[in-house]
Structures are given as C-alpha cells and as structure tokens.
C-alpha cells in the first residue's frame, strides 16, 4: 500500500476524510492493510541519538513504533518526548500514556502537547503497579483508569472540551487506542471489557503477549458475536522468547503475561533456544493473522529488538510492502506501487 503523499519529516500529512488523525498508522489500518507495530523501550538517557538508534532498528518493517510510558513501572525517558523526537524525523509513533504517574490535569495536558508536536496515535493504559518496577516507593496516582482516560481523550477531540467543560481553542487530531489482555481472568469478561473500551472511544487495540492461540480465538469469536470486529482494529501482541528460563521468569514476574507450559518446554528442549523462540514467534504470527478480525501484530521484543526485522520478514505478513522510514529510497516506493 503506497500513499502518494509520502511523509516529509516534520510536516504533517493531510488528513483523509473520515480519519481521526493525519497519521500513516491509521491510514494503513483503514485501507485494510495488515499493520505491524513494534515496541521501543525508551532509553535511560537524555540523548536524542539513543532514541533514533532504537527506532532505526525497525526501519522498513513497522508501520508505527510504540513508545512505552515507564513500562513495568521503571523510570525511563518520557513517552511524549520520545514521540516528539520520532515525529520530528518522520516516524509514526504510538504514544503510550499510563494512568499510574499523572492525574487528570497532567494527562489531558499531555494529550494536547503530544498532538501539538505531531503525535497521531495514543494508547490509553492503566499501567503496571509501582511495585513491579525500580521505584516501588513511588506514589501510585491512578486518578483515572484506562476507560476514563479514553473518555477524556475522545472528549478533547470530539467535543473540544476538558473534563471540566472548559473549551479548547483547537482540538487534538489523534487516533485513540487501548490495550486488552484476553489471556488472564476473568476470561468471560474480557470481550465485554473490549466492548467497554470501544464504547469509551478506543479505535484500535494492542493486546498483551499472545502465546495461547486457542484462548485468542475464543476471545475473537466472542468479540465477533458482540459485533465489535467492525468497530475496532485489533493488533495482537507477539514477541520472541530468548530461552525457557526467560519465559519462565516473565510469566512469574511480568504482570499479565501468560505463557503455557508447552511453550516453555519447547524452548527448554531446543538445541538453539533463541532461534527456536524466533521460529515460534513466526509461527504464532502466521497463525494469528488468519483469525477473523485481526488487523495486525504488535511486536514486543525487549532486548531482542534486532529480531523484529527477521521475524516479520520470515512471517511474510507485509507481503513485500516496505513501510516508510526516514531515508527510504524513493525507487522502493515506486517499485512497490508498480507491482
């Protein structure tokens, strides 16, 4: 899928009719493409170069880059700053915004600020508890929850007012998303919760890591029955596991990660666990893309970011498409447009 008006770094694209944002990510989804997003772990540094280097790894394989907001309750560079830097050189970031660290005054302000800097996509999250991170002594805020945040965000955009009712002089044109985790209890409620998020304004969903496809199928089938699949774009979270040990550690310590025993055993029995983890990831993507209502995959390859290109390439989901990146050769887009 090629758009004639390729981005010019630092300049927004024109907004297409019926779209909420001027972003490429929304364009790909609305055009029916299979989207690929990847998670960028913001650096523990104050240097822009570190952000660029981390984004550069994904060049040519992702439609949008998620900038996490203190993920796992660990302190890093702020997501709004990472997104502003990425937008400035033409990347298409998804800004994650968690309710853990800010009250409603800060969050509404952050959305306006991000939109002013050209950020087109926002993922509204509740956030991990502070106990999970490196500052367990911090005060957890949670003034809003993810659904209240979605509601406040869409109010800014669609009604042009703050929660207080005070009017904005210009509205943020942002594509709003939320997370969902079909893989933890209460399982029956999860599709309903998706419906709650859609009702509150979620336009796209990025799920937690999927290592259990039968559970995902059940969730998607129920979402279909509820009539949600036409109302929201669902990107399923996937990632390569480096070893059985890491997999086991993750399912014990990372909130919300469910990894079935069979997966851990498969890695434990492999001669080259790292390669096996990538094979598994490719297989999962290929299986997931066939499920009705799946609009893309979201790669979380923490400390294995270089694996994203390989996994996406082997999975074939881009079907030869090369998503834009700063410095992408012009002939590349023409070639693909002709093919």
């Amino acid at each position, binding site marked *: 899928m090629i758009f004639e008006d390729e981005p010019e770094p630092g300049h927004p694209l024109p907004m297409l009719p019926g779209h909420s944002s001027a972003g490429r990510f929304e364009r790909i989804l609305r055009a029916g493409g299979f989207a690929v997003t990847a998670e960028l772990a913001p650096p523990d540094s104050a240097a822009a170069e570190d952000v660029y280097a981390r984004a550069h790894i994904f060049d040519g394989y992702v439609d949008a880059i998620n900038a996490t907001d203190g993920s796992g309750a660990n302190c890093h560079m702020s997501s709004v700053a990472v997104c502003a830097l990425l937008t400035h050189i033409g990347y298409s970031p998804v800004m994650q915004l968690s309710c*853990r660290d800010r009250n409603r005054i800060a969050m509404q302000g952050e959305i306006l600020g991000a939109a002013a800097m050209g950020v087109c996509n926002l993922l509204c999250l509740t956030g991990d*508890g502070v106990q999970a991170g490196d500052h367990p002594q911090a005060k957890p805020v949670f003034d809003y929850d993810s659904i209240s945040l979605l509601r406040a965000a869409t109010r800014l955009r669609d009604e042009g007012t703050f929660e207080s009712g005070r009017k904005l002089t210009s509205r943020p044109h942002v594509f709003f998303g939320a997370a969902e985790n079909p893989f933890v209890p209460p399982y029956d409620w999860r599709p309903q919760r998706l419906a709650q998020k859609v009702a509150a304004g979620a336009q796209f969903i990025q799920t937690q890591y999927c290592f259990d496809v039968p559970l995902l199928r059940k969730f998607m089938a129920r979402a279909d029955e509820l009539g949600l699949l036409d109302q929201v774009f669902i990107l399923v979270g996937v990632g390569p596991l480096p070893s059985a040990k890491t997999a086991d550690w993750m399912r014990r310590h990372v909130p919300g990660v469910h990894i079935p025993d069979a997966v851990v055993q498969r890695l434990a029995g492999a001669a080259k666990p790292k390669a096996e983890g990538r094979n598994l990831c490719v297989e999962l993507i290929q299986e997931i893309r066939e499920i009705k209502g799946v609009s893309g995959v979201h790669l979380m390859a923490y400390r294995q970011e270089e694996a994203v290109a390989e996994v996406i390439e082997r999975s074939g989901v881009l079907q030869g498409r090369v998503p834009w990146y700063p410095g992408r050769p012009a002939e590349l887009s023409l070639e693909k447009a002709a093919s």
Partner: protein
Amino acid sequence: MYAIRLWSVRHSRGLEAFYQGFERIVVALDPVWRFLGYDRIEKPVAAVEKLVKGVLFDCQMCGMCALSQTGMACPMNCPKQLRHGPCGGVRVDGMCEVKPEMRCVWVEAYAGSQRMQAGPAAIRELRAPVDRRLTGTSSWLRVAREKAPKPPAKAAP
C-alpha cells in the same frame, strides 16, 4: 476485614435486596434530613456509614459508592482504584497483580455481579471519574439528596 468482604460478595444478592429497602427509607426521610440540615448531619452519618460499610466491604469512603453495580465488591480496594473492571495484570489464579495475597477485586466483583437481582450488566456501565472532593463524605446522604423529589423552590423575597 478481608474474610467479611469476601462473604459480602458471596451474599451480594441478599445485600442488594437489603440496600434497596434501606435506600428507599433514606430517600423517604429526605424531609427529615433537610429539617436537620444535610451539612450538620454529614459528619455523624458519614461516621456511621464508614463503620457499617467498613466492616462489610472494607469501604474506602470514596463518596461515589458503586457497590450495587459492582457485585458488592468495593472497587476502591483495587490498588489501582479502577472503576471499570480488571486491569491486564490479574494473575492466572485470579489474584491481584499488586497484592498477590488478595483476590482481584474485579474478579470478585464479576462473580458478585452474576448473583445480582438487577443482572450483571450494570458492572459494565461507564462511570464518571471519581470526584476526589467527595472522599470521606456519605454516599447515603448524596443519594438521598439526589433521588428525593425536589422541594418547591422558595419564592423570591
């Protein structure tokens, strides 16, 4: 207390019926509350409410009680104070992400809501974000004030 809180959720249907009767009385007494002055009785009523609901639900006195929508599980006992359902961190055994020794408040709420006479749909309603100014105030009196028929407006002097 944790054990009593779990008991309350198991008996959400009975407590719901009791509360409905209780609410009718509190609302019907609106003229009395007005005669005594809502402001004047706020503190003692809030103290009683805190005691009763504290024992039954570990009530945190948010002032915007949602118990009858949430299967008689108080959402303010969720360490993230979520008002619309469980976060993505619930453990596979249904325990809380933040406090592994506690059942997820929303897993409990979901179970409680299934037993409610009014049906489980109310738990999914969109709730207004908590107004933090109401913390510590009486939900009972707020409901009485809101649900009672409005007294005729006083004639302008």
